[in-house]
């Protein structure tokens, strides 16, 4: 099985390389196989400088501003800056904030500044962090902009948390802001959690919860399903619901709307 996998990977790589080679011939836009290209750009954007997030206060100010400047609230993309937040320990519910903004016609597209933790919860809400730069423009602005341009296509990857040992009854492992990869079994009475995906290359006998900060686009893969509970973004199934076709098999769990869907990995 590994052989065929390796062969497939090699095939794929070769195809990709061939494509890259062809690209030289004519403009990418002319090539029917090319559907997009990444290019650097500079835009002027509106900033929403956040001082404190409280549902009612924020809502009140939004509706007040809407009355004062209705033209502004018309599909306006904004960047939320977090440097001026008064209390950095307080959790900002970016999902709620984004939803409310959108109801007013303001579309947050990213955040800038703030603590790593804030940036993480923003990311979970679909708001990536822009590279930080001083808010006041200085003379070496051009230089920094250039540096940013060349760095732009590179996405910062947060490495997965990899656990080599079995997770035992009574233990809990949490991968914050990244995927969780487990090479040993998860015992009955143990719990593994992740903001992202969970991969278990061994039996899962305990509880596995992916996307615990609400990310519905997360998945759980495991080699042998004997779990007490499987959950994605709060939608879960307990052992009783899991008994059946996939019990003891390798599975892939994901969300299908509001429904936790389990399918076999081996076709």
């Amino acid at each position, binding site marked *: 099985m590994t052989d065929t996998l390796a062969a497939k990977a090699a095939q794929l790589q070769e195809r990709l390389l061939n494509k890259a080679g062809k690209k030289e011939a004519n403009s990418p836009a002319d090539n029917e196989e090319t559907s997009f290209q990444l290019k650097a750009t500079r835009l002027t954007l509106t900033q929403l400088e956040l001082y404190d997030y409280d549902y009612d206060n924020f809502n009140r100010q939004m509706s007040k501003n809407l009355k004062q400047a209705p033209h502004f609230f018309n599909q306006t993309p904004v960047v939320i800056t977090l440097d001026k937040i008064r209390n950095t320990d307080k959790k900002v519910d970016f999902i709620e904030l984004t939803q409310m903004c959108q109801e007013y016609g303001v579309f947050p597209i990213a955040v800038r500044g703030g603590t790593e933790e804030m940036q993480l919860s923003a990311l979970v809400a679909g708001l990536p962090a822009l590279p930080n730069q001083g808010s006041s423009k200085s003379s070496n602005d051009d230089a920094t902009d250039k540096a940013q341009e060349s760095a732009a296509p590179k996405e910062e990857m947060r490495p997965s948390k990899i656990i080599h040992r079995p997770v035992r009854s009574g*233990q809990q492992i949490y991968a914050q802001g990244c995927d969780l990869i487990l090479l040993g079994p998860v*015992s009955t*009475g143990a719990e593994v959690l992740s903001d992202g995906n969970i991969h278990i290359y061994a039996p899962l006998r305990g509880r596995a919860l992916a996307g615990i900060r609400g990310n519905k686009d997360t998945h759980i893969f495991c080699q042998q399903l004997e779990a007490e509970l499987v959950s994605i973004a709060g939608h879960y199934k307990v052992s009783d619901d899991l008994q059946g076709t996939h019990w003891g098999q390798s599975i892939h769990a994901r969300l299908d709307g509001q429904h936790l869907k389990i399918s076999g990995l081996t076709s």
Partner: protein
Amino acid sequence: MVAKIVVVTSGKGGVGKTTSSAAIGTGFALRGLKTVIIDFDVGLRNLDLVMNCERRVVYDLINVINEEATLSQALIKDKRTDGLYILPASQTRDKDALTVEGVQRVLDELSGVFDIIVCDSPAGIEKGALTAMYFADEAIIVTNPEVSSVRDSDRILGILQSKTKRAAEGREPVKEHLLITRYSPERVKKGEMLSIQDIEEILAVPLLGVIPESKSVLKASNQGLPVILDSVSVAGQAYGDAVDRFLGQEVEHRFINPSRMAIFKRMFGGE
């Protein structure tokens, strides 16, 4: 010289920790290692019964920790096996006297004299058990072939990897050995007990040995004899194999299939 510290632990009570500590400790001494077995079960002393030295106990582990006695006063030399010593537990004192600092001092002192230190842990996951395992280099996890015992062993394994001195210092983790005791191949066959494969799969720990359920164990302990000295009994032989494996020998597992006798008895409606 630095002694190797081995804890015999289980989580669940009554699975055979003390029986195993006595047998394996004696086995080490028989193979020429200078060995001491420490009873950490404060309040429930019984290692000295199995080792038949209860009438010679004057001082105990707590006395040494509290500096009311020296180690040489408290150590009991085994009469049958050369190079084997017992450090008994107190029957009367309360468990709080068992401090990590105190135990550290005792172990440091023993470490200069002995090759191997066997710690007989009390049941549970409370202070006594935690103290017994804290300084361990290796652990023998005693498990009976039943779900609750396996579950408790799993829990103890987690604690061994997170709450020991080795874990605190980020050193190489405690080396784990699985010892299945009171194994009855006949009952496994009937589906009344977990099989060796089941247990190994759940715990994912290398198998040190399988000690069959055997009447000779109770008989030996009533006589104050570590069962490993009863070389006719299957349990004694199985403990001997486990000791050899612990010391690096490759020994095939015995007594893990229903014996001919048992099959014979069942066929003709005996037992």
